[in-house]
C-alpha cells in the first residue's frame, strides 16, 4: 500500500526478474570470490543459504552477460571483471551460461514405484532435456532470435560419423532445435504424468531413461544458429544441489567431474556441516579434477591465495550492494545524495543521550571504590578523568575490568604504580568492545547501530544484509513521508536492529525444521555466553558467542548406529544440521586449539542483539557431546517474546 518502494525487499536474485535491475544492483567485487580455473573442470560452490550462490551464478547467465556487454557505461566495474576473465568483450559474449535448478521434480522421482536403475536413468533424461532446452533458449536470445518461434535455427554440431555423437543425438531428439524441443516436451509430459498420477491405473509405463548425461558431451561439440557457429563455450550452472537425494547427488557429480567434457559446469549446493559432503575423494584430485569454493569461508577469510579476494573485502562488497540498491530511491524520494549507509548515525557520543555526565560519575565512583585508593591504579584513574563522553564511559568500564584482572594476579613483592601504557598493553580492542557492550547493557543505552555494525550483523550473508537494510530503509521512509531528511539516529537504529533480531529468533520454530530444538541449542549457547560475560574479569573478551565439540565427537554423531543407541543423539543431530542449513548457527570445521580439533558453532550475528551479545567472532566455550545431547533432551524451548518497544516520533 506504500507509495514508496523499499529497494531492499525485492531481495533474492530469483525475485529480481528484470535483468537490468539485477545487474545494476550486483556488487562487482563478488566476482573475485571465484577462482581462475572454472572453465575446464567442475566448480563446486558451497555456502549457507542467502550467501549469494544464485546471484553469483546468475551473472554468468546469457541474459545478464548480454546486458552487461550492451550497457558498459552503467556496468563498467562488472564489465571489466568479466572481460578480464574472458567471459565477454565489447563485441561478443564468450560463455553461453544457463542455470538449471535442481529443486524441481528430481527428488520426487524417487517416490515413484520404479527400480533404482530406472529412476536414475529417468533422472538423467530429465536433466538432459532441461539442459538442452535451456541452451536452445539461451543461444536464440544471444543471437537476437525468438524462442520458440525460431527454434528451427538451432543446431547441435557434431563430428560427422562419430558413432557416439550419432547415438547421443538420437537420444535427445536429434541435432536440430525442433527435434530437441519435441523430445523435451514428450519427456516432461511423461515424467509429469507419473508424478501427477492420482489414480493407481495411471501409474503404468515409465519412459525410457538415459544412461549418461549426453547433453554435456553434445554441447561441447559446438552450437550453430542458422548457418553461423556460435563462438561461445557452453556453461551449465546447477543450482540447489542440496535438494537432490544423496544418490542423485553422487550420480550427477560423477558425470560432472569428467575431464573429457568440454562444457563448463558449475554445481552449487548448501553447506551442510553434518554430512559426508566434504568427502569428495571420489571426484578425483581437488584442483585438477574439481575446484571447491566455500563462499562463506571466502567471505570471512578471503580467497585461499589471499590475493584475488582479500580478507575484509566482503564488507566492501556489501556496502557497494547497499549503495547500488538505495541510491535511486533516496535521490527520487528525498533528494538525498548521500549513500544509504552514510545516513546511519555513527556518533558514539550520541549513545549516551542526556545521561552522559551522570553515567561517567557513576562509573567513576564504582572504580574508585574498587581501587580502594590503592596508588597502584592512580595513573589509570587519572587517565579516565581526562576523558569525556562515550570515550570516558568505555574507558572507566575497561579499567574496571583491568583492575579486577590485576587483583586476580599473584601480587609481586613490590607493587608499583601501573602506567597508562601498561593499561593499554593489558587491554585490546576486544576488551574495549566488551566494555562498551557491558555499559550499554547495564544502562540500557543504544549500542547496535552504525554502518559497520549493520555490515557485521549480516554474518557475511547477502540476504540477511538486505533484510536488515530493508528494515532500516523502512524506518527512513517514515522520515521521508514526514518531509524530513532520512537520517537515522543511533537510538532508532538500535530499536530497528533489536526488533529484527527478535523477529529472527521468533521465526526459528516457524521456518526451520526441528526449530524448537534449534531454539534450545541457541538458548544454551546464550546461557554459556551470559555466564562468561557476567564475570568481572571478562575472561573471553569481547564475549562468548559460540560453542564447540571435538571433531572426533562430531564424527561419532555422524554415525547412524551411535545415534540409534544414544537417546537424544538423533534429535541433536537433526537440530544441528537444521541450524547450520538455515544459517542460524555457522559451523567451522577442523578449528585447531591446543592440539585438539573442533567443530566450532557460532551464533548468527543477527541473534546477538536480542541477547546483548557482542558481534565479534573468536570466543567460544567447548562442550562435550553428551552435554549437548542433554540440551535438546530437556523440555522444548519456548521463546519468550520481548515486548515491542515504541517511541513517540516528533511530528
Amino acid at each position, binding site marked *: 500500500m506504500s507509495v514508496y518502494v523499499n529497494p531492499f*525487499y525485492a531481495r533474492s536474485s*530469483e525475485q529480481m526478474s528484470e535483468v537490468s535491475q539485477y545487474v545494476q544492483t550486483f556488487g562487482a567485487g563478488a566476482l573475485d570470490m571465484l577462482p581462475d580455473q572454472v572453465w575446464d573442470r567442475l566448480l563446486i560452490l558451497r555456502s549457507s543459504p542467502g550467501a549469494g550462490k544464485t546471484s553469483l551464478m546468475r551473472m554468468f547467465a546469457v541474459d545478464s552477460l548480454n546486458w552487461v556487454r550492451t550497457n558498459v557505461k552503467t556496468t563498467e566495474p562488472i564489465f571489466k571483471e568479466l572481460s578480464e576473465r574472458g567471459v565477454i568483450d565489447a563485441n561478443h559474449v564468450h560463455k553461453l551460461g544457463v542455470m538449471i535448478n535442481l529443486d524441481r*521434480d528430481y527428488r520426487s522421482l524417487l517416490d515413484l514405484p520404479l527400480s533404482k536403475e530406472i529412476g536414475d536413468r529417468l533422472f538423467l533424461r530429465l536433466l538432459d532435456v532441461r539442459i538442452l532446452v535451456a541452451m536452445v533458449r539461451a543461444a536464440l536470445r544471444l543471437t537476437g532470435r525468438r524462442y*520458440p518461434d525460431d527454434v528451427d535455427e538451432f543446431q547441435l554440431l557434431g563430428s560427422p560419423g562419430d558413432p557416439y555423437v550419432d547415438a547421443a543425438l538420437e537420444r535427445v531428439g536429434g541435432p536440430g532445435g525442433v527435434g530437441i524441443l519435441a523430445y*523435451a516436451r514428450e519427456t516432461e509430459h511423461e515424467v509429469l504424468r507419473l508424478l501427477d498420477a*492420482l*489414480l*493407481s491405473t495411471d501409474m503404468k509405463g515409465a519412459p525410457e531413461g538415459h544412461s549418461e548425461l549426453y547433453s554435456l558431451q553434445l554441447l561441447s561439440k559446438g552450437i550453430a544458429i542458422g548457418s553461423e557457429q556460435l563462438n561461445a563455450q557452453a556453461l551449465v550452472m546447477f543450482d540447489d544441489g542440496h535438494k537432490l537425494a544423496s544418490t542423485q547427488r553422487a550420480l550427477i557429480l560423477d558425470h560432472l567431474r569428467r575431464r573429457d567434457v568440454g562444457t563448463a559446469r558449475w554445481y552449487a549446493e548448501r553447506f551442510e556441516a553434518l554430512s559426508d559432503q566434504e568427502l569428495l575423494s571420489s571426484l578425483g584430485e581437488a584442483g585438477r579434477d574439481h575446484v571447491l569454493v566455500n563462499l562463506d569461508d571466502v567471505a570471512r577469510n578471503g580467497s585461499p591465495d589471499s590475493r584475488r579476494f582479500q580478507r575484509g573485502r566482503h564488507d566492501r562488497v556489501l556496502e557497494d550492494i547497499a549503495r547500488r540498491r538505495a541510491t535511486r530511491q533516496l535521490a527520487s524520494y528525498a533528494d538525498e545524495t548521500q549513500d544509504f549507509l552514510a545516513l546511519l548515525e555513527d556518533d558514539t557520543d550520541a549513545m549516551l543521550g542526556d545521561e552522559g555526565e551522570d553515567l561517567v560519575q557513576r562509573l567513576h565512583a564504582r572504580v574508585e571504590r574498587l581501587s580502594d585508593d590503592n596508588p597502584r591504579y592512580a595513573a589509570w584513574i587519572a587517565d579516565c578523568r581526562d576523558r569525556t563522553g562515550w570515550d570516558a564511559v568505555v574507558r572507566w568500564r575497561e579499567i574496571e575490568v583491568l583492575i579486577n584482572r590485576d587483583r586476580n594476579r599473584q601480587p609481586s613483592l613490590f607493587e608499583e604504580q601501573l602506567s597508562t601504557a601498561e593499561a593499554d598493553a593489558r587491554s585490546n580492542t576486544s576488551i574495549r568492545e566488551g566494555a562498551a557492550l557491558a555499559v550499554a547493557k547495564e544502562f540500557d543505552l543504544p549500542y547496535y547501530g552504525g554502518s559497520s555494525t549493520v555490515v557485521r550483523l549480516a554474518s557475511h550473508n547477502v540476504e540477511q544484509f538486505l533484510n536488515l537494510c530493508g528494515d532500516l530503509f523502512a524506518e527512513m521512509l517514515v522520515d521521508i513521508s514526514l518531509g524530513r531528511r532520512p537520517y537515522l539516529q543511533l537510538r532508532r537504529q538500535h530499536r530497528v536492529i533489536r526488533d529484527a533480531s527478535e523477529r529472527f529468533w521468533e521465526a526459528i520454530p516457524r521456518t526451520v*525444521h526441528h526449530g524448537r530444538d534449534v531454539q534450545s541449542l541457541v538458548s544454551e549457547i546464550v546461557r554459556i555466553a551470559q555466564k562468561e560475560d557476567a564475570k568481572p574479569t571478562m575472561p573471553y573478551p569481547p564475549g562468548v558467542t559460540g560453542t564447540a565439540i571435538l571433531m572426533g565427537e562430531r564424527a561419532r554423531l555422524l554415525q547412524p548406529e551411535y545415534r540409534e543407541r544414544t537417546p537424544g543423539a538423533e534429535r541433536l543431530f537433526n537440530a544441528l544440521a537444521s541450524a547450520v542449513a538455515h544459517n542460524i548457527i555457522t559451523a567451522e570445521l577442523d578449528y585447531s586449539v591446543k592440539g585438539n580439533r573442533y567443530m566450532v558453532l557460532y551464533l548468527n550475528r543477527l541473534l546477538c542483539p536480542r541477547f546483548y551479545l557482542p558481534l565479534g567472532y573468536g570466543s567460544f566455550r567447548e562442550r562435550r557431546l553428551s552435554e549437548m545431547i542433554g540440551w535438546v533432551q530437556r523440555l*522444548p524451548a519456548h521463546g519468550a517474546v520481548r515486548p515491542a518497544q515504541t517511541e513517540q516520533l516528533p511530528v
Partner: protein
Amino acid sequence: MKGRWDDYVMAIESHDASPTELWDAACDPALSTLWIMGVGFDPRGLVGVQQLMSVTSPPRLEICLLELPPPSAGSDPATRTMATDNAEMFRQLTEHTTVRSLPYPSVHEPINAGPQIARDITDPSFLSDVGHVIVDISSLPSTVYFPVITSLLRAADLPVDHPAHFRGELQVVACENPAIDAAITEQGVDAAAVVGGFRSAFDKGAQAAGSGTTIWAPTIGENCGPSLQAIHAFLDPDDTTPVLPFPARHPRRADQLILEHQLELFELFQVTTTNIIYADEGNPFDLYRTLRRVKRDYEHALAPLPPTTLALSAHSSKLLSLGVLLAAYEEGLPIVAAPARDYTIDSAIDLDEVSRGNRVVCTWLAGEPFS
C-alpha cells in the same frame, strides 16, 4: 460458461438445519458408506464423525483412517498431548465400527505423500463395495486432502466402463471454526512445492517449452507469513491477487489479516489494493466462482502474451480451501503449498469456549445431484 458447481448442494449446521440430511440422502443401504478422516491434534477432527454416529449412523459405515506423520520429538508438548487424547477418543468412538487404516507413506518429498494416499484410496479394490464417500477434512493437511478429493472426483468423472470409475456419491465435510484456525500456527515451514496432482497444471512445459505470466492468488489466513514467503519465493509471480474472507463471522477479520500481513503483501509482494479479492468465509462455492472469473479475466486481458498461469494457495479456513480446490480442479489450475512439519495451538485460548463456534458443513461434490 456455466460451472459444474454453480448450482451447489451444501448443508451448514445451524439451529434448523443439519448436514445429516445430506448424509441420509446420499446413503445407499446396500453399499458401504466410507468416512475418510485423519486424527491429529486438531480439536475439530472428531466433531463430524461424532455427529454422524450419534444421529444417523449409516447401516454399513466404515471409517478410513488416514494416519498422519508423527509430530517431531521437539514439537510442542501440549499439541502432542492433544493428538494423543484425540487418538484415544477415536479409538473409543470406533470400537464397534470397521476401521480401515492407511499408513502414512514413507516419501522423499512430503508433497508426494498425498498422491500416494489418493492412489490407495481410488484403487478399484478399495472402493469396490462403497457407494458413498465422505471426506472429513477437519483434521487433514491440505497436501493430503487436495489430492484425495481430486482423485475421487477424477474417478467419478471416468467413463463408466473404466476400471477405476467410482459410481457413488462424494461429499466433503469440514468442521468450520475460524477462531481455531487463527489459534493454530504452522511450524517448520521452509520450502514450497506444487501439490501432487496439480503439477502438470503448473509445469505444462514451463521448463521445457518456455514460460509465460504467473499470477498468484493466495487465500490469506492467520499465521501464514512463512508460508506466503516460501510460496512467493517458489513462484516468483508477476502479480499477486490475495483473497481475503469477507463477509466473515468476524466482520473485521479481513482488515486484521491485512494488518497482520502488511509486510508480506505490500512491501515484499508489492500488492496493489485494487488486486484484493473478497470471498464469503462460509461458502466455498463463492470463492470457486470468483477464482474462475479471475482466471477468465486474466486470460482475456493477457491474451496477446505467452500463456498465463493462475496459481492458487490456501492458507485460510478449510471451507475456503475447498473453494480453492474446486476452482483448481475445474479450471486446471495449479495449487502450491508450503507443508508444515509440526503445528502448535495457542495455549491461551479456552478450547471449550472456542469450540462453541464449531459448525459442521457438508458439501456434495459428485453423484446424484449432478447426474
